[in-house]
């Protein structure tokens, strides 16, 4: 029988800290090749269609930026939460509420035009996302309620609420009964960056700015230090006078606001109206982005682009090979698995113990106590 044994490293390995995302990516590719082979597709062909063709032209790079923007925006917020050991997994709901709050202006006041509309919408979007994120934060700090479960449950509620809005009070009366709001006017539409080259809009710029700001916050400011201390040792944080409850609110409001900004940017930039479904699971995929980026804002930018490519690739293999676009979800899930597994290498050395192969070289000290060893 084979057995894995973990041996703690004296200190974290800088080498594997850098290599682990790449090892994880390589393993995902191998597993993906096996999966394509099982589906009866030549893996090389599939990979060309999945990873290379979707980004071989300029307009396609714009599509990549459109998909990457919400992922990066949400993930940098989540990275602060996860660093603080606070588990907001309801970003999908905060994304939706950001979109709803921000859309209130073009839907309820379509006559209101001018340069103020867009900034107001973005601000409202952030407020909406933060407000929705405040619910699990409040319940956790006030009633000690598990934030994982409450934030997740609120995702379902948000999806149903949006569904009700676009089928009910906010439905476009001239929309032939389709469940959608009116098309946003020009004043309420997030401008494209380079309209001649492709569709990418300012959302991507917001994402990059957010990543840099959070990077400065986490690396250069006291608040970031507070996040890291409370995350790795709440006790030490208490002694230092950092409040855990305040941190819960800070992390939730920040990540909620960023998810809300992602939501309103997506609706105002890429979609142009509210629909029953406005996200292909960005809020959940962003969790993968955060971990693949090693909870580092700059790593998250790279990870966001990679995960955006898995979405585009999924669509590409669906149209070219007739494979379900769910293949994107599978790739994303596998990637997260391998990332988490490879992270073990940073803190531990892995020894493979085969009973026939190795004779354990026990240190002399342990030999002195043979009874103890047998007991195990």
């Amino acid at each position, binding site marked *: 029988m084979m057995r894995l044994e973990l041996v703690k490293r004296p200190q974290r390995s800088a080498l594997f800290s850098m290599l682990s995302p790449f090892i994880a990516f390589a393993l995902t590719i191998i597993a993906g090749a096996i999966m394509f082979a099982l589906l009866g597709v030549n893996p090389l062909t599939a990979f060309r269609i999945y990873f290379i063709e979707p980004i071989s032209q300029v307009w396609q790079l714009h599509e990549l930026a459109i998909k990457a923007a919400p992922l990066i925006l949400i993930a940098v917020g989540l990275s602060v939460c996860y660093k603080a050991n606070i588990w907001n997994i309801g970003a999908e709901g905060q994304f939706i509420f950001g979109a709803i709050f921000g859309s209130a202006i073009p839907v309820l006041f379509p006559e209101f035009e001018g340069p103020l509309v867009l900034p107001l919408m973005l601000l409202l979007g952030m407020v909406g996302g933060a407000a929705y994120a405040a619910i699990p934060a409040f319940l956790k700090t006030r009633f000690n309620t598990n934030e*994982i*479960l409450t934030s997740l*449950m*609120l995702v379902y509620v948000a999806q*149903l609420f949006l569904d*009700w809005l676009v089928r009910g009070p906010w439905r476009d009366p001239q929309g032939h009964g389709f469940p959608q709001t009116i098309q946003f006017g020009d004043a309420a539409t997030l401008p494209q960056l380079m309209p001649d080259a492709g569709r990418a809009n300012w959302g991507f710029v917001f994402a990059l700015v957010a990543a840099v700001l959070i990077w400065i916050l986490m690396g250069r400011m006291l608040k970031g230090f507070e996040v890291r201390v409370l995350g790795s040792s709440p006790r030490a944080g208490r002694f230092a006078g950092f409040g855990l409850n305040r941190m819960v609110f800070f992390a939730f409001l920040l990540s909620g606001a960023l998810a809300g900004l992602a939501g309103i940017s997506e609706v105002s930039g890429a979609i142009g109206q509210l629909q029953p479904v406005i996200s292909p699971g960005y809020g*959940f995929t962003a969790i993968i982005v955060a971990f693949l980026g090693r909870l580092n804002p700059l790593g998250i930018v790279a990870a966001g682009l990679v995960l955006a490519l898995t979405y585009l690739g999924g669509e590409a293999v669906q149209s070219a090979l007739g494979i379900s676009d769910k293949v994107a*979800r599978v790739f994303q899930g596998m990637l997260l698995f391998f990332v988490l597994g490879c992270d073990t290498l940073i803190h531990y050395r892995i020894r493979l113990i085969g009973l026939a192969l190795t004779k354990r070289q026990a240190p002399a000290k342990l030999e002195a106590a043979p009874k103890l060893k047998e007991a195990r």
Partner: protein
Amino acid sequence: MDITVNILLTIATAATPLLIAAIGELVVERSGVLNLGVEGMMVMGAVGGFGAGYLTGSPWIGLLAAVVVGALFSLLFAVMTLSLATNQVATGLSLTLLGLGLSGMMGTRFVGQPGVRLPNLDIPGLSSIPVVGKLLFGQDPVFYISIALTAAVMWFLFKTRTGLTLRSIGDSHTSAHALGIKVIRYRYLAVIFGGACAGLAGGHLSLVYTPQWVENMSAGRGWIALALVVFASWRPWRVLAGAYIFGAVWIGQLHAQAFGIPVPSQMLSSLPYLATVVVLVLISRNKRLTMMNTPASLGQPFVPDR
């Protein structure tokens, strides 16, 4: 009378998957492991069960396949968290994400296909006794499995030595390890049991509750099962009670929609999720009581020092 009986029957059908998944997760958490992948294992069980039933024509093979798929899928989580000591929260989440994706991909060819349904129990004579006959002797087989499973887990955890050992591991893996208990082995078995239960719960969805395959058909039930374990303060009989309360909420909102109550259907649909939040708040309000009931090493990775 007949209506009451029918409503009770549908409540039992809605509660059964919640009960089975929650009982499995209860054992896992009692061993000190937090597996947030219930939703993913459940949906994998549902697609595996439907697929096997559809291809072989036998719902029983389908049910068996659901259990096996759930258990195998949980093994992935076990290897990661137990052998590689990864973060349990993140790994559980990724199990759910992977399960939702994988089931969607595997299930593409099953969408819209007619499924097979496990027949209800029918004992001549007994099942036709008015009122109680149907409730006691005329339900689907998984219902009886769920009740037996609850009783068995209750007995195992609190009346057997192995159960005591399992609970001790959940409360302090270092002490258990020092006593020579094979912590990792116990936890492997617990996680796999939890996976098998979640798979069975998924099989119930696609072979009894609605015999067809719909993407994401678990619809958050795995998460509700996780909440139920907290709600029940890690006691099996309270899981049973909680599952039936949630079953009643689930059925209640469906009936309210059917009766055309002048409230948006989306609001009614969100009731089970809101109820979960409310119940969690009520139960965790008392911090000391929660601390007392929670297995003390829940969610903490364990690497034996050798």
